[in-house]
Each structure stands twice: as structure tokens, then as C-alpha cells.
């Protein structure tokens, strides 16, 4: 019998690799008079749910997907976070 494990994977351009999107955002900031904002980096986030026999097993699956599918290790780094199953992102609380 299996359980559901929810993860979010963040994929960001590696440090030291030029990020044109981040640059573009920074360039747009003055128009929104947001002058004190720096080091903008733009990446991807993938949320998913894994059916697995154990959390260990679920982690292995997510790590594999992150490395093989979601990120290109040449230029991107990634980070996997475990989320509570209830925490599917709804409309922002803000």
C-alpha cells in the first residue's frame, strides 16, 4: 500500500551563469520605482505529487525527475522541498 508525497522542485540558473530574464526584470524595476531590488534571478518551479511505498522512495523518484527532466545540470541547479499534501498552493493569502 502506498502514500502520497507532495514536493516542489525549484530550478534556477546556476550561479555565475548569465540570466537574461533576471536582467530584464531588473531593467524594468525603476519604472515601478523599485530601485532597491537586486540579484533578481528567474527560474522555474514544478509542483508534483508522488505515490510511493515510502518517503525515501518518493525522494528518489523526485530527485531523478529533477536531474533528468526538470533541470539541465549544465546550466541549472535545483532544490527539492517536501510539502504537506494539504499544501497545494491556492490563491495567495497576501
Amino acid at each position: 500500500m502506498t502514500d502520497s508525497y507532495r514536493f516542489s522542485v525549484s530550478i534556477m540558473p546556476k550561479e555565475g551563469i548569465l540570466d537574461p530574464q533576471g536582467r530584464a526584470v531588473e531593467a524594468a524595476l525603476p519604472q515601478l520605482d523599485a530601485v532597491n531590488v537586486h540579484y533578481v534571478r528567474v527560474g522555474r518551479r514544478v509542483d508534483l505529487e508522488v505515490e510511493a511505498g515510502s518517503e525515501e522512495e518518493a525522494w528518489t523518484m523526485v530527485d531523478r525527475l529533477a536531474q533528468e527532466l526538470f533541470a539541465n545540470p549544465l546550466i541549472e541547479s535545483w532544490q527539492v522541498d517536501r510539502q504537506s499534501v494539504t499544501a497545494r498552493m491556492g490563491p495567495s493569502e497576501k
Partner: protein
Amino acid sequence: MKVAVVVFPGSNCDRDAVHGVELAGGSAELVWHERTDLGGADAVILPGGFAHGDYLRSGAIARFSPVMGAVRDHAERGGLVLGICNGFQVLTEARLLPGVLRRNTTLRFEHRWVRLSVERRDTAFTHAVPDGLTLRMPIAHGEGAYWLPSADLDALAANGQVLFRYAAPEGNPNGSERAIAGVMNERGNVCGLMPHPERASEALLGSDDGLWLMRSLVESLARARVAA
């Protein structure tokens, strides 16, 4: 001689590639991505398009299509593989070619007519190109900025793996490192380029320079046949 043109869900230059091969005197047939063989073809073209939508990262999903196993085997046996645009992206994602094709530095899809300098004319993909000719053909992509760590770029050039560079007057349209538009593997049997030779194979359409590349491919197969 037969060329297999792979059709991924979302490929949209597959029929154009077949047309290009036929103009060059070859014959081509479409091969659905779920196939695990190439139908006995002598060469493979991975065509342009948006395989699987290319939403995540161009070519990221396509590299896992069943047919890619057959493409890899074909390449390992020394068979010719040509990736055009999205096909180039798939080949880099599959690590059959070095490098990454990143988002254009313009952050826009770019459709432009560009000019290519042919860095080597002694390859299976370029031997038919007349000396001194720069090739005029269109690009049409959002993720075509070729990237490698600069040390690897030096090695790539040193190995003679850089086949095409964007040339004047139009120049580098997408921020590719060292204006690289196309590369091949060390063995010289797998090649990828972002511009579209198959769309530039008839004067009526604005240029037939691309036909030199299609011819090179088709004639290479003919030679291989004779040799075999």
C-alpha cells in the same frame, strides 16, 4: 538510400524536411516517435518544431521518446544524424551533441534570414558546399543561444566540431557563444544546427543555399553505399 524523419508530437517541420531531402535527390519517410526502430533508414533527421510543446525546456521531454533509443544506436554505429532547430535541441538534451541551447538573449522568438559561414567543408554534412559560399537561410526559434563553458568552447573549436557560425551582415541573432549556429560530435556523424536548410532549398522561397546541406547528407549516404 532512405532518410528517416522522426515525428515527435509537436514536430512541425517534419514534412518540410522530407521535402528538402527529396529536392536533394534522396528519399525520406516519416517515423513516429513511439517506434523503436528507424525502418532500416540510412540516416536520421530530427526536424524542427515544438516536441511535446517544449514548454519545460526545448527537447527536454523528446529525448525520452522511445525512438531516441534507435537514434542513439544508429549514431553509435556511425550512422548520420542531423538535427535541425528543435532537432538540434533534442540532440543536445540527449547528450548526443555537446552544449545547451538557451533562451535567445533577446528574450524573444526570432524569425530572421541569417547568413552562415561554413567552418568545415570536409564533413558528411557540408562536403557539397562550394568554397567561399556563405549560406543564407532562415532561423525561427526562441531558444537558440548556443552555450558551453568557455574552456569547452575552446576544445570544441580545437576539435573542429564547430560547423556553422552566424556571419555578417546580419550577424549573431540570438546571443550564441562565439556566434555558433551548428556543431557536430567528435566522431563527425551527428550534426545539429538552429537555422533551417530545408526551408531554403528553392530559389522561389528566397534561397536555395540550404540545398547544399541536404545534398551533402544524401550524397554521403550514396558514397557509404558504394563503399559498403
